[in-house]
C-alpha cells in the first residue's frame, strides 16, 4: 500500500501539483492555469484519445458483422471464438474503447488531490502541500495561490453552474461520439447511458473542488472539438443533439463509419464469399440508406 501510494504520489500527483503551481505563479491566475493544464494533458494523451476514437468507430462499424455471427453460431463458445477472430483480424481490441477513459481516472484523481492542496481553503492544505512542493524558491514563495476565477473559488465546490456545465458537455460529447443504434435494444441502452452518465458526472461535481469541475468542462470542450475534427467537420444535426431525432449528431460521421464498415465487412469471410460480394452491384447498406434518408430529410426541411 505504501509503495503504491509512493509511486502514485511521486510520478503523478507531485509533478502535476508542481506544474499547476508553476503555471499559476507564471500567469497569476489559477483559472488560467487550469486552462493551460487541460490543454497540456489533452496534448500528452492525444495518441490514446485518437486511438480510442478509431476503436469506437470501428466497433460501431463492425456491429452488423457481429450480429451476423450471433445469428449464425448458436454455440456460445464457437460464437465467442468467431467474434474474437473478427476483432483480431480487424486489429481491434474491444476494451480499446475505454483506454482513454481509463487513463482519465488516475489523472482526475491526481488533479483532485492537486486542487485540494493548492487552492484548498484551510491552512492544513498548505501543510500537505509543503510535502509535495519541489525545493524551488520560486514555487514556495508563490504560495498561497489566488484561488478565485470568475465566480469560482477553485478549492470549493460550485453547487450549480459547474455541475450543469459538466453534465451538458458530457451529454454533447457522448451524443457526438455515439453512432445510431442498429436495433431497438441497443438504442434503448444508448439512450439510457447518454442521459445517466452526464447526470452522474454532474452530481459528483457538486461535491468536488470546482477546479476539477473546470478541468472536466474544458476537457470535454476540447473533446467535442476533436470529435468534430475527427469526422471531418460538416453539418451539425441539432435535432439529434436535442434527442428529437435518431440520426447521428455529426452526419459526416456516417461516412467514416461506412468506410470502416466496408473494411470490416470483408473480414472473416472466405474468399469465394468475398468474390461473390464484390461481383454484386453496390447495394445500399443500412448506413448508406440512413445517410441518404438523413440528407433527404435535411433537404426537405430546407424547403
Amino acid at each position, binding site marked *: *500500500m505504501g509503495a*503504491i*501510494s509512493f*509511486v*502514485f*504520489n511521486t510520478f503523478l*500527483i507531485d509533478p502535476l501539483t508542481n506544474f499547476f503551481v508553476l503555471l499559476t505563479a507564471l500567469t497569476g491566475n489559477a483559472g488560467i492555469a487550469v486552462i493551460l493544464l487541460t490543454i497540456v494533458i489533452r496534448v500528452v494523451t492525444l495518441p490514446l484519445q485518437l*486511438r480510442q476514437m*478509431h*476503436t469506437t468507430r*470501428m466497433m460501431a462499424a463492425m456491429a452488423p458483422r457481429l450480429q451476423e455471427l450471433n445469428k*449464425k453460431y448458436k454455440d456460445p463458445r464457437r460464437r465467442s471464438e*468467431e467474434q474474437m*477472430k473478427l*476483432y*483480431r*483480424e*480487424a*486489429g*481491434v*481490441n474491444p*476494451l*480499446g474503447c*475505454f*483506454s482513454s477513459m*481509463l*487513463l482519465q*481516472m*488516475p489523472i482526475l*484523481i*491526481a488533479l*483532485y*488531490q492537486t486542487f*485540494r*492542496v493548492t487552492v*484548498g*481553503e*484551510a*491552512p*492544513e*492544505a498548505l*501543510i*500537505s502541500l*509543503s510535502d509535495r512542493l519541489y*525545493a524551488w*524558491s520560486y514555487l*514556495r*514563495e508563490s*504560495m*498561497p495561490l489566488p484561488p478565485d476565477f470568475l465566480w469560482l473559488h477553485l478549492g470549493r465546490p460550485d453547487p450549480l453552474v459547474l455541475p450543469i456545465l459538466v453534465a451538458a458537455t458530457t451529454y454533447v460529447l457522448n451524443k457526438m461520439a455515439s453512432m445510431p443504434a442498429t436495433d431497438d435494444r441497443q438504442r434503448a441502452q444508448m439512450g439510457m447511458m447518454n442521459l445517466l452518465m452526464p447526470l452522474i458526472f454532474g452530481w459528483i461535481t457538486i461535491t468536488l473542488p470546482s477546479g476539477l469541475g473546470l478541468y472536466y468542462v474544458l476537457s470535454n470542450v476540447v473533446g467535442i472539438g476533436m470529435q468534430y475534427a475527427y469526422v471531418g467537420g460538416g453539418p451539425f444535426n441539432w435535432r439529434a443533439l436535442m434527442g428529437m431525432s435518431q440520426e447521428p449528431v455529426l452526419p459526416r460521421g456516417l461516412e467514416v463509419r461506412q468506410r*470502416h464498415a466496408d*473494411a470490416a465487412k*470483408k*473480414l*472473416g*469471410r*472466405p*474468399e469465394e464469399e*468475398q468474390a461473390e460480394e464484390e461481383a454484386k452491384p453496390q447495394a445500399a447498406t443500412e448506413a448508406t440508406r440512413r445517410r441518404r434518408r438523413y440528407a433527404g430529410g435535411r433537404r426537405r426541411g430546407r424547403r
Partner: protein
Amino acid sequence: MFHVKQGAVPTLPKGYVLSLPKGRVLALLGLILLSLLALACGGAAGSRGWAAPVPSDDALIVSTGKGRLDALDPQTLEGIWRFPNFWKLPSRAERLAGIYGAPVVDSDGVVYVGDYNGYVYAFRPADLPNVEVLTGEDRPPAAAFKLEDAIIGGVVLDEASGTLFVAAGRNLYAIRASDLVARIENEKASVGLNVVFKTGGDIWAAPLLDDGKLFVASLDGSLYAVDARSGSELWRFTASGGLVTTPVLAGDLLLVGGLDSRLHAIDLGGGDERWSFTAANWVWSRPLVDGGRVYFGDFDGNLYAVDVDRGQELWRLSLGKGPIRAAPALVDGRLIVATEEGWLFGVEPSGQRSWLKEVPGASLNADLVASDDAVLIAPSGCSKPVGASEKLYYASVDPQTGELRSASGVC
C-alpha cells in the same frame, strides 16, 4: 460456415491498427485500482485547527478535536467542561469547523473564541449548573455571532476598551465585547461591529496588540501597523511572500516569519526592515525570544537560534521529523519543540538534542505553552500508544525528561 484463410483476409489501413494487447489492458485496469487506493490513502486537507492551550487558575483550556474545546483541571488534567457540547447554541452555529486562534478569557471568566465556520462565540463556564449529569435542558446558552469569512487568525481582547478584535478573511473586525456577552442571555441582542482594517490577503495569524497599535501579518506579504482606535494605517512592511506568524516583540523590533522562508526583523517605530534571516523553507512557527536570542523552526524541520540584534545564525539543528508549525517553548533553560508529524524534542540552549518523544498518530501544530514546570501541548487528537488498552490525550510534557501526561475524560 466460415473458414478463414489467414493470407486472404484483407487488412485495414495502417492507421487502423488499434489492438491493445491484453497485458496493456490489465495494466490500465491496474492503474485505476491503484489510483483509487491512492485516493483512499491521500490525506485529507480539511480544517481541523491548531489553537494553543490556554492556562488559567481554574482550568487549562485545550482544543482537543475539530471545533472542540476541553477545560482540564490544571492539577489532575481531568475534564471539567466541553464546548460546544455543554452549551446551548443557535442551530445554525452548532457545527464548529476548526479553532485556529487560542481562546481568550476575560477577567469575568467569559471565554471568547473564533471558529473556522466564521462564528465568534462567547460563553461563561460559571453558568454551568452543578449537576452530576448534564441534560439538554440544563445546558446554559452561549452567544454566537457570524462574520463573513472563516476565522483563522483568532481573537484578541482589549479589556481596557472592551473591544474584541477578530481576524476573519482579509478583514480585521472590532466587536463590542459587552454586546457579545449580552447575546448570551438574549440571542437577538444587537452586536456592535465595525471593520477596523482591510488587508490585501487573508489573515492567518493572530494580530499583536501593543500600546494602542495592532500589528497584523497578512498573506498579501505585508505586516501592517494599525491604530487600534481609528483603524488608520501607521506603516506597512512588505515581504516577498505571505506572512503567516503572529508578530512577536523583541525590544524595538517586531519579528515575523513567512512563506518567503524568512524571519524578518522590523523596526517597531517606522516599519523598516532591520535584518532578515533566510531559513531552508517556510517560517510558520511563531518565534520565541529569550534574552538576545530568537528561536524558531521551519518547514524542513530545522530549529534555529538567531541573534536578535544582528540576525546572525548561532546554531541550527535539523530535527528531521516533519515541518515545524508550532511555536517552541522554553522552560528552565530547556527548549521544547514539536513537529507536524507528532514528535517532541528537548533541546539544550547550545543546540544539543537531549530527548525526543513521539505522540503517536497525532500532529503537533498548536503552539507550545510554558506553564510552571511543564510545557502544555495540544495534539490534533487522541493517541493509542503501543500496548495501551485505550486511547489517551496527551496535554503536557515534562521539559526535563520528555515524559508525557495524559488528560482524562477527553478521548
